[in-house]
């Protein structure tokens, strides 16, 4: 699911307010709202508490990195070229952190998928065949 970037406005302090002797904290500034971590999808029987915790942490890293990427990209558009280049470098670093989080999640998912497939194969497929490895077959026969 594509991440939604939310930009909101809030009253904030500005150095010129004090200089002009006007009410402080009244300048309306636009800022990137930190995204709420998306709900972690868990698969019963495959995910335990630790898995969920890891999944949540990776999701949080991804959200924070993407938010900071947006902030840095916004700064790039407002500063002189020589500073924008450095800000762009920082933005790329945040993007890399987000990508690493997604990659890790993807690896975890691939490993979990293998377990899920293994669990599913114990049930008859569409053709009515049961695909099992030797150990599972032995266990089934034992239980009978």
């Amino acid at each position, binding site marked *: 699911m594509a991440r939604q970037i939310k930009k909101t406005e809030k009253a904030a302090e500005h150095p*010129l307010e004090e200089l002009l002797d006007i009410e402080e904290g009244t300048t309306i500034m636009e800022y990137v709202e930190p995204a709420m971590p998306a709900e972690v999808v868990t698969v019963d029987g495959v995910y335990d508490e630790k898995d969920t915790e890891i999944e949540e942490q990776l999701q949080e890293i991804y959200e924070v990195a993407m938010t900071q990427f947006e902030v840095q990209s916004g700064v790039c558009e407002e500063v002189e070229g020589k500073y924008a280049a450095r800000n762009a470098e920082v933005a790329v670093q945040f993007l890399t952190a987000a990508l690493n989080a997604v990659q890790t999640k993807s690896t975890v998912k691939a490993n979990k998928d293998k377990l899920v497939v293994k669990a599913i194969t114990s049930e008859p497929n569409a053709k009515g065949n049961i695909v099992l490895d030797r150990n599972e077959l032995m266990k089934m026969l034992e239980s009978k």
Partner: protein
Amino acid sequence: MARFKQGWYVPKHPEKYVGKLDKIRYMSSWELKTHKFLDNNPNILKWSSEEIQIPYLKPTDNRVHRYFPDYWVLFRNKQGQQMQEIWEVKPFSQTRKPRSRKTKTRLYEDAQYIVNMAKWQAAQQFCNKYNLKFRILTEKDLYR
């Protein structure tokens, strides 16, 4: 690529701007920051950018030129008084006597300084005449 961040500014509150809305430009990131402050602070009642012209005698050629100060601002202070000011945004280094040791640079900086002083003197006289305040904003005022 331009050395400084430049572009056209589209105000969020066009009703506050006095002048041609399609001709609001910024010549540096400092000016962009100031534009945003003036546009987004509710205590700034009216503002304009490079709309006022003040005649001044340029010392380098001894002829009358026009000086366009960066801003004219009408704002309400904490006491509820309405104040009018004229602002010029300049690097702090350009508000002090040049200290460069290189002859060529020094000559250029000296000329620039003398011209700036003539402009600001004319602006001060203009402000005295119309009961305004003249202020030079530097990076020390904009970034605290």
